[in-house]
């Protein structure tokens, strides 16, 4: 399979499909994410932490959809989180993996191995998992309404994306407090 989908194109589709889901963004997905909302959590400085933070958000706000936009390299760093997600089984958690096979931010070095993400997720206990490599398949997979936890992995070209200016300039202290305040307001409203 030769992935033709650029990371930026995949992320455009994900962003367009996410509805009112809270997005947890990291790595390349963060670097090209087109539009940030106040409830989007942008993770820098804690590679591998996106899925666990998303799990906490999903358990803390079970009435909200939570989409974790992970990278393959970052998920490999904390692969055991699949077990925690499956065990807690938040029904509204979608775990998206941008599988471009490289550590794009650090210069495009290859990620070790080429895991079968759907097999890993299903073996860990996710309720469903899909791998896709073109835009239509990705769109279709994201629109599935079955209960989570779900995984959608998208194979992308291993070219280093053109990151948006300032995409990684995130103040963690401000980030966490803004998302927390936004969620508090939305739960009261």
């Amino acid at each position, binding site marked *: 399979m030769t992935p033709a989908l650029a990371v930026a194109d995949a992320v455009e589709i994900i962003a367009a499909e996410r509805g009112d889901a809270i997005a947890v963004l990291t790595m390349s997905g963060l670097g090209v994410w087109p539009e940030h909302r106040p409830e989007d959590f942008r993770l820098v400085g804690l590679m591998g932490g996106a899925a*666990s*933070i998303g799990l*906490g958000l999903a358990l*803390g706000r079970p009435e909200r959809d939570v989409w974790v936009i992970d990278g393959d390299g970052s998920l490999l760093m*904390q692969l*055991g989180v699949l077990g925690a997600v499956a065990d807690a089984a938040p029904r509204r958690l979608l775990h998206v993996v941008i599988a471009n096979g490289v550590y794009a931010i650090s210069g495009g070095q290859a990620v070790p191995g080429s895991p079968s993400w759907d097999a890993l997720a299903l073996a860990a206990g996710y309720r469903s998992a899909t791998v896709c490599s073109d835009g239509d398949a990705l769109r279709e997979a994201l629109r599935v309404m079955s209960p989570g936890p779900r995984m959608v992995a998208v194979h992308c070209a291993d070219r280093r994306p053109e990151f948006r200016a300032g995409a990684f300039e995130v103040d*963690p202290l401000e980030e*966490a407090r803004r998302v927390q305040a936004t969620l508090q307001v939305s*739960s009261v409203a």
Partner: protein
Amino acid sequence: MSAAVASVPAETVLMAFAELKITHVVTVPDTNQRTVLAAVADDSRWPTVRAATEDDVAGICLGLWIAGRRPVAVIQQLGLFAAANALRAVAHDYAAPLPILAGLYGREVDRDVTASRRSAVRLCIPLLDALEIPWSLVEGPEDADGISEGLAAAFDRGGVSVVLLGAPTS
């Protein structure tokens, strides 16, 4: 720091959780806290979130806190070594409240923690000091108030605080 250590009842720990309005217990199991984990499992006040590594415990707790909850981490002190980067981030980058109850696995009863023959015991406090994470040591029922106080420090100050349990809970 006395070398004499004694059990703290699990009920004392649960009372501290109630006092601090803890909403979730996030854990990688700990030998010293078997009775605490068993009691929590039988108590509907605290959903238990099981993780495979302590890094994930830190991330899950961060997510829960952002979602407006008040989690506590129940782990073994070896996990503090394993999760050093995650603890650094939560403690300093996010300054998010993360109270941790950590059993001191391998702590010898015949010597002070700082003189332990076991590096996992002897180096634990220096590790926390290096990470600028406040800690307290609970060595028996006479220190029991230190559990609530030590865990509360995370919420009061923002950031990580660790209560080290020197003996298995009863």
